């Protein structure tokens, strides 16, 4: 184990232990926001302090000069909003109020980056119990984060990744312990790795996740570009409906050094926020008729397009926004409106509409119903296949996701395909057994990726289907229709079976006789 691994493990363990303060008092779904926010605050404070000390060593007592230099920091930290200031006052009442004030001060001082991030989180909340208990819990929390193991100064821990990883570690652990709700903010890491690698992100790509949760899938794509090319030239876009999860995603991005992101808060179907900026900037002019354009016309007309669109949308969301879908201003449902109670195709169609015309490619996690359900969904599916957009269908093992045991599939769509066929892969049998959860191993991922690359049928694993074959199956994409994994039974030799039967009968007769003998010995006739 390298030293960075050790540092990572201790930090992970220490932040996880900090959650003990909350356990049995508050629900994990509530305290995760507190712990993650505190980690962010601590990080910002430590960076600030580190640089402050550095400047102080350099410039001595020139307080004004130091102050001036610190204004160029990534995050500006008002004096009273420092973690250590809060920690110093931890024994006097009013911890919750002080932390809230500090967060708002930080938000105001960095409004460009942190606008609204802390609005949904209140440490001064009755969720933590009455005044005294709340103060007590928060004092413990401040003390936990003041431990030397959680000294997050850059001069101590070096690269930023350790903090980002600790943040993700927390999110992952919250996901695996908080049951049903977990799927809302976290995709299992192997699945996001698989999707990122399927997309083969390149330098210069614009990448979007319209249901980004805590943002880890997006960052996987970015990291892949950095690893493969060393370049930081890419742009991450995301949208998340739940306010507190959106805040998590923002903090997650900053802690991973992905400052150049655009994550919007809002419902992707009802209110897509990632729009084409050109359309917005171009002023609406109606030949000088009226300077005040009608309100409707001011609305930008087109969605922003991306090179890569990835998502793990909620499975079969019931209230996805069916009512407004018919008159969607962006024409996303021109292939048909998905059923009222199943939002799967709403997300797929949104993603399809946001792919760039040439380089656009997308990967989406869906429940299996998407492959075979009929009615409106069947018609949409047929059109997507006829337009030659669907590229690969991958069936994943069951029990891979948090909060649900159902097996899911990954669909890959491409704007420009090399052929008119669809590759089906049945990867449902390749996984590592876990206690409550299954995992994909590196070998399982590689097998999928190799097969996608080769784009050839593999016996009992993959099948390259032609449009005619899919039409023959009525555009039902149920994977077993294409990939036959049924084990052929070996031919039975009836003569051998009969012979064995006779032998067994003889054997039984012999045993019966023996047993009679033993019973007699025991005095039973």
């Amino acid at each position, binding site marked *: 184990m390298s030293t960075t691994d050790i540092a990572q493990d201790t930090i992970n363990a220490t932040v996880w232990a900090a959650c003990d303060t909350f356990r049995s008092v508050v629900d994990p779904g509530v305290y995760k926001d507190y712990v993650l926010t505190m980690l962010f605050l601590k990080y910002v404070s430590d960076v600030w302090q580190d640089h402050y000390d550095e400047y102080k060593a350099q410039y001595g007592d020139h307080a004004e000069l130091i102050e001036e230099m610190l204004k160029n920091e990534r995050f500006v930290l008002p004096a009273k909003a420092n973690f250590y200031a809060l920690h110093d006052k931890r024994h006097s009442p009013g911890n919750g109020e002080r932390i809230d004030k500090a967060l708002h001060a930080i938000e105001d001082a960095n409004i460009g980056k942190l606008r609204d991030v802390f609005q949904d989180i209140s440490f001064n909340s009755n969720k933590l119990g009455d005044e005294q208990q709340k103060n007590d819990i928060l004092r413990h929390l401040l003390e936990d984060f003041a431990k030397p193991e959680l000294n997050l100064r850059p001069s101590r821990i070096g690269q930023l990744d350790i903090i980002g990883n600790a943040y993700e570690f927390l999110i992952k652990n919250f996901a695996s312990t908080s049951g049903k709700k977990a799927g809302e903010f976290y995709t299992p890491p192997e699945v996001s790795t698989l999707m990122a690698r399927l997309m083969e992100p390149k330098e210069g790509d614009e990448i979007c996740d319209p249901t980004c949760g805590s943002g880890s899938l997006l960052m996987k794509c970015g990291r892949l570009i950095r690893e493969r090319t060393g370049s930081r030239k890419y742009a991450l876009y995301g949208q998340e409906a739940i306010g507190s999860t959106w805040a998590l995603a923002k903090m997650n991005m900053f802690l991973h050094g992905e400052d150049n992101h655009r994550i919007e808060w809002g419902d992707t179907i009802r209110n897509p926020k990632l729009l084409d900026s050109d359309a917005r900037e171009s002023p609406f002019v109606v030949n000088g008729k009226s300077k005040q354009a009608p309100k409707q016309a001011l609305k930008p007309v087109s969605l922003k397009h991306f090179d890569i669109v990835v998502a793990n949308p909620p499975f079969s969301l019931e209230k996805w926004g069916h009512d407004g879908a018919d008159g969607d201003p962006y024409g996303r449902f021109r292939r048909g409106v998905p059923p009222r109670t199943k939002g799967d195709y709403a997300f797929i169609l949104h993603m399809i509409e946001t792919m760039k015309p040439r380089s656009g490619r997308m990967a989406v996690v869906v429940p299996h119903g998407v492959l075979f359900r009929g009615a409106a969904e069947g018609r949409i599916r047929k059109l997507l296949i006829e337009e030659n957009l669907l590229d690969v269908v991958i069936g994943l093992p069951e029990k891979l996701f948090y909060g649900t045991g159902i097996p899911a599939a990954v669909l890959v769509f491409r704007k420009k395909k090399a052929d008119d066929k669809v590759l089906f892969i049945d990867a449902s049998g390749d996984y590592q057994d876990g206690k409550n959860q299954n995992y994909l191993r590196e070998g399982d991922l590689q097998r999928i990726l190799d097969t996608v690359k080769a784009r050839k049928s593999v016996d009992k694993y993959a099948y390259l289907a032609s449009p005619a074959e899919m039409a023959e199956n009525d555009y039902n994409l149920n994977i077993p229709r294409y990939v036959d994994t049924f084990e052929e*039974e070996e*031919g*039975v*030799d*009836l003569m051998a*079976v*009969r012979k*064995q*039967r006779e032998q*067994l*009968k003889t*054997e*039984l007769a012999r*045993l*019966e006789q*023996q*047993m009679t003998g*033993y*019973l007699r*010995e*025991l*005095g*039973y006739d």
Partner: protein
Amino acid sequence: MSIIIRIMRNDAKIITLGAVADVRQGYPFRGAIPEAPTGNVRVIQMKDLTRAGLRDCDSLITTEVDGRKGPDWLRDQDLLFVARGTSNYAVLLDDPPQRTVCSPHLYVIRVTQLQRLLPGFLAWQLNQLPAQRYLHQSAEGSHQLSIRRTELEKVEIRIPPIEQQRAVIELERTANAEREALKALINNREAELAAVAERLLG
């Protein structure tokens, strides 16, 4: 039923287990057993046992055991007794590999008076209703049930003549063989039906 009644109604001597056998706990590993692929000591754990006996000698984990005094190795005809959980039973070891110990969750029962009591017969008796009823009563615990050694030593054991003990062991062995043969017969019939299906429908 009449068989059981005849056996039970005999005048065979009743004696406590502690009087005819040594009972000791398995090797006192602290916490998880450190697995060492190159270790030269094999360990039998709870998961390696079923009521039918030891699962598979090759799947036992190996480890290193240190200490001045070597552990008490398991021997042929030792009994292992599962004292944890809701199911308590004894298993007879038939020539275990050399240098094998068992985890501390198991008791090792070693018969000291071999001329009076056959280990195989003891194993069988511990798994029968009278002993099981006693064991069930002496199991304690709020999270996981377990039986203390002193309680196990107090199980009452009947000691019929050696020939009868031997006959019971043989009877049990043949009964097991019969069960296997009957299972094979069921599988055989399924194979026969599969063959018919293949011919008619294939």
